[in-house]
């Protein structure tokens, strides 16, 4: 049987790719980063399999301790490259980072749903919200650090590293809750984090949002 992950990736990515023919630059950037996120997700799946076969750890310990490190590092690389090469505004960087995380989550959810025997709408909602938002927020944290790349170079290096570590431990806690049968708490906590984040940034106008963060 052919690689199911690759088949799922092509089935979702090709229609998204056709959207690039239309729309303005801003909306195209979101779609591009969704596609990059899905590509990173496909790559991470293979890397996780290779590392799992190489390191003699039980599956639950691997999912909690190793896979967040691999996934967050892989998601961070395109964001850092984008920040270095194009010097985008903070707002664009944050939106692109979130889109990359969501793209990663789309493919991850598709692969998991394809492999699970009994699925329900409730399961899909939990995976959709929990996984999508948590990946988006974690990548956005790294994107925020990258926004200092040209204004404060010292802060970029140290801050991005620190925010990457924050993203890794957040991801690890999420994985811990999901494998520990606390799926509802694990899925609701990213939603709560997102609401808190939006409340904290609510008072600022769209123009100032990027600068004041």
């Amino acid at each position, binding site marked *: 049987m052919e690689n199911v992950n690759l088949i799922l990736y092509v089935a979702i990515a090709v229609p998204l790719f056709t959207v690039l023919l239309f729309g303005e630059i801003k909306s195209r950037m979101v779609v591009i980063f969704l596609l990059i996120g899905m590509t990173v997700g496909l790559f991470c799946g293979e890397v996780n399999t290779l590392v799992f076969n190489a390191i003699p750890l*039980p599956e*639950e*310990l691997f999912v*909690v*301790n190793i896979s*967040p*490190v691999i996934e967050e590092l892989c998601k961070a690389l395109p964001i850092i490259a984008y920040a270095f090469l194009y010097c985008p505004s903070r707002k664009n960087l944050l939106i692109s980072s979130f889109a990359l995380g969501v793209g990663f989550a789309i493919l991850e959810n598709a692969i998991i749903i394809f492999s699970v025997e009994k699925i329900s709408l409730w399961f899909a909602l939990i995976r959709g919200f929990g996984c999508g938002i948590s990946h988006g927020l974690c990548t956005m944290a790294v994107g925020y650090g990258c926004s200092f790349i040209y204004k*404060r170079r*010292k*802060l970029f*290096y*140290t*801050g991005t*590293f*620190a*925010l990457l*570590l*924050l993203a*890794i*431990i*957040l991801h*690890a*806690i999420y994985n*811990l*809750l999901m*494998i*520990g*049968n*606390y799926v509802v708490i694990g899925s609701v906590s990213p939603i709560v984090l997102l609401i808190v984040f939006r409340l*904290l940034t609510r008072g600022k106008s769209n123009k100032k949002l990027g600068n*004041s963060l």
Partner: protein
Amino acid sequence: MERYSIWLRSIELLAVAVVLIFCVLKMHKKRFALYFKIFLCATACYLLFLLYDVITVICLSMQLAVDIGDIGVLGCGAFLFSANFGQMDGLVDEKKRNSCLIKWLSLLAPICLLAVFCLLTFSSNVSLSFKIFGIIPVLSGAIASYYHLKHILLPDDSLGLLKIVRPTNIFALSFLLFNTLFMGASIANYVIFKEIAGILSTLFICVMSGCLIKEAKKWKTSI
């Protein structure tokens, strides 16, 4: 992990969470400098470290002696380093005559922290790989401690910033010391020493976070 240890960790978690929420609410109302927000991120990282410890006991059937929760400690140190090296040091180090001596004296802080950690871990019977991997989370804190001690020892700058943040630096340095002791005692399995160091490091990070609010208000009026 013993039962009393889980309860203790949960109480520490609750205390840090309450202090963090209070500080975030205070900082949200008035726009404070990025320097103080980075300190709060360090507190958030420490909170996640405690949260991971508590949730691991509930969710996992087995644990590793050195696991990914220690990244919370590494991240905490990285944020403290980022606040000092990335933000503050360029503003306050006016490169005066005696600053060279102060820089050399400040090296005592990371040397002491690492020496204490190595003394605790290498005196125990734990395997060498745990000792080597165990030092990684402590490294960022050790590097940050250099700047904390430097900013305590440096004479007041022309902007008056060092005078404002000196208490925070003292509390941050104390937190890093007790946290290093906690990490070392965890690896070496000195249980009572570990719990006392854990309580003290939580206490100092709570006091440091509370102190930030007072200093942030003074910072606004001094510039």
